[in-house]
């Protein structure tokens, strides 16, 4: 399944250390390389590129744009996790549940675009 995405994106972005497919299997997608500045982005650019290409209106996207989208997605994950955690904290729980996420989406205006998309 992700093989299709990986194959489609396989020709692009070979230079980034995150370029390999990174399947949904248990081990993390790549071992840390010793390249300087290796932690610029943890999400594999190939997957992000596959998402970008899924938009029928998009013709081309520059490498920098893909990189920034990946980084923005990381920031987004951090942000929504923290906001959802606030809800869990109020319930004195130490495990984030799906409902915490739903509450965060409802409460935070910037997350309005997510409404109805997670089901």
């Amino acid at each position, binding site marked *: *399944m*992700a093989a*299709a995405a990986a194959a489609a994106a396989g020709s692009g972005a*070979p*230079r980034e250390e995150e370029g390999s497919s*990174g*399947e*949904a299997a248990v081990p*993390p*997608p790549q071992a840390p390389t010793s390249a*300087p*500045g290796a932690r*610029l*982005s*943890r999400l*594999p650019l190939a*997957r*992000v590129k*596959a*998402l*970008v290409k*899924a*938009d029928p*209106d*998009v*013709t*081309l*996207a*520059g*490498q*920098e*744009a*893909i*990189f*920034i*989208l990946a*980084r*923005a*997605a990381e*920031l*987004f*994950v*951090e*942000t*929504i*996790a923290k906001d*959802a*955690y606030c809800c869990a904290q109020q319930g004195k729980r*130490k*495990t*984030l*549940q*799906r409902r*915490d996420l739903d509450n965060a989406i409802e409460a935070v*205006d*910037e*997350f309005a*675009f997510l409404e109805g*998309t*997670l089901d």
Partner: protein
Amino acid sequence: MAERPEDLNLPNAVITRIIKEALPDGVNISKEARSAISRAASVFVLYATSCANNFAMKGKRKTLNASDVLSAMEEMEFQRFITPLKEALEAYRREQKGKKEASEQKKKDKDRKTDSEEQDKTRDEDNDEDEERLEEEEQNEEEEVDN
């Protein structure tokens, strides 16, 4: 399978790691919440792409560039991302430049050993090759328009 764009998920392991690092120690996340966040991240990328594409089209460009994405962040009311994203972009550009210079240097050294006449030819090829690996079209035009 990947019938809908939202099903193109980002790797679970990476998503989990990002979440855990964002939260205090000892906090866990349920599988449902984790996969919902992963899905949300995909939707975020799709939405940001669409917004960024609008900016590109307004600028009569066919290639999305970094500033289109930054404009999209503003439009989506994620202004707080803009500064960290700009910093990341600077670092990324430095790294790309460093890589290019390193590989140019290697080629130079190699050529010096073999034949010094062919040095200049290969340097030009490198410039074109490295800029945009995604598609071959419109690579040089768009690179200049970033700022």
